[in-house]
């Protein structure tokens, strides 16, 4: 009986305050979408780190015809220099830091280059001897890059030692920045949402002061009087959170996994199923914020 009664009260409250309720839904929707987007960016960063860090290599590039580095003064790397480098890589002093290494000849480099830029006209302007041969080294611990760099960069026949990780780190720090920005917007929007919920509950309590006054007089408990108002706020916020979750899912499904994954074949995108991990967090966050802000509002504006 009491449950039915409370449900009825919630229904009439939502109907009476429809425009305010819709604005609460929209503001929570937008704010939680930003929260979720920040979360998704973080998930994407982790996903890419896990995927790329296993694959990134330290590359020791050998001199070729066009090299201008100091170590390349004597022209392209000779067979002898190349064997010398290989011997160093196999020596125990270096071996303890690396898992394995491969030699990539200029011909192989050209093949890889053509694969990677198959869609781009740049392929036509590059010839095989413009690309350097290289040793591709898989590190045991990518943090130890410095040791390899110091050992090899001064060797004759070596043009440069490059760490692919550094390129990735730049991408990740950019993505991190975007995620922090999204979180910043989210915080401002959540603040708006809380203020709006507070105002809505206040209006709702005011428009039903006659009912609550009678409820008080006939001895209705605090729960029966306050619960409809709190649930009103919570329901509106949860609807907003569900909308945000659906939007994020659609974004992951159609944009990341549909559009972007066909453009960036080598990039691992988070799956739309992973977004479902964020959804309950958003719903709990929305419900919690609305619940707490309504409760605090009622304490001030609804005498019991």
């Amino acid at each position, binding site marked *: *009986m*009491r449950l039915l*009664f409370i449900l009825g009260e919630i229904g009439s409250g939502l109907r009476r305050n429809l425009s305010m309720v819709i604005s609460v839904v929209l503001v929570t929707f937008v704010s939680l979408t930003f929260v979720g987007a920040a979360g998704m960016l973080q998930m994407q960063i982790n996903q890419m780190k896990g995927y790329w860090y296993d694959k990134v290599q330290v590359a020791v590039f050998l001199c070729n015809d066009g090299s201008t580095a100091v170590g390349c003064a004597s022209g392209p790397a000779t067979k002898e220099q190349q064997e010398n480098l290989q011997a160093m890589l196999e020596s125990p002093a270096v071996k303890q830091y690396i898992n394995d290494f491969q030699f990539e000849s200029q011909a192989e480099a050209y093949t890889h280059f053509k694969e990677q830029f198959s869609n781009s006209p740049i392929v036509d302007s590059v010839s095989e001897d413009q690309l350097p041969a290289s040793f591709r080294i898989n590190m045991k611990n990518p943090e130890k890059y410095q040791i390899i760099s110091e050992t090899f960069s001064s060797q004759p026949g070596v043009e440069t030692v490059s760490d692919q990780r550094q390129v990735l780190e730049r991408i990740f720090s950019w993505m991190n920045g975007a995620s922090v920005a999204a979180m910043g917007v989210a915080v401002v929007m959540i603040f708006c949402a809380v203020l709006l919920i507070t105002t809505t509950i206040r209006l709702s309590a005011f428009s039903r002061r*006659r*009912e609550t*006054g*009678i*409820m*008080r*007089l*006939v*001895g*209705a*408990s*605090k729960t*029966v*009087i306050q619960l409809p108002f709190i649930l009103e706020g919570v329901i509106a916020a949860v609807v907003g959170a569900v909308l945000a979750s659906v939007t994020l899912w659609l974004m992951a499904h159609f944009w990341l996994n549909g559009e972007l994954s066909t453009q960036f074949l080598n990039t691992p995108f988070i799956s739309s199923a992973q977004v479902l991990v964020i959804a309950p967090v958003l719903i709990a966050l929305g419900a919690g914020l609305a619940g707490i802000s309504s409760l605090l509002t009622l304490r001030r504006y609804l005498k019991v």
Partner: protein
Amino acid sequence: MIRFENVTKVYEQNARPALDSVSLEINRGEFTFLVGASGSGKSTFLRLILKEDKASSGSVYVAGQNVANISSWRVPKLRRGIGVVFQDFRLLPQKNVFANVAFAMQVIGKSRSIIRETVPEVLKTVGLEGKERRMPHELSGGEQQRVAIARAVVNRPGILLADEPTGNLDPITSMGIMGVLDKINQNGTTVVMATHDDDIVNEMRRRVVELKNGKVIRDEAKALYTSMIPVVGESRRLRDASGEELNRAQGAQL
């Protein structure tokens, strides 16, 4: 049923207290009129019984319990034992007569079957049989007040507080309302009624407690509404100076 022991209520420091060390006992089943000018402390008296306000000093006992010792989560239980009626009826305009009365039972969790059984009974007691489906705006003032009384007593409270229940009604309708209140009192409910309506007080001949500036200046059984009140009462006395009213007052003193 209701006992005030040296109760003082101060709303604002430095201002005259709304109630000034009032001691009073109202017994179970009694019908008491609370009279006095506006600002004499009648409403404060009623608010203290409901624990809407806290006494500044002294103790208020309702049904043997010191209301100061009732914790805030048990206040609803106290209020279930007290029905209240106001001058402005306070009905819910979008609910019909039945729903208005049923509302008081719904919010304290009474079952649907009990509500369906009790509400028509109570409506019969207040003389509104067959008007269950009417909306408040379709009723006369007297009928609206009967609905409000039905709502106040539907949960069978031991006490009924009425704050100027006839203030908005014409004399004949008021008499009808008094009949209803009398009937409820006959059934064992303690009734405390704050009023300005001298005709009613004189007609009913019940206990009269008169307040002035927060003090009890008169407490008489089977009494009349004497003309000792200032301002409003003063002018009334002048108007009635040569008439019946004066004679009645003299009769009371004899």
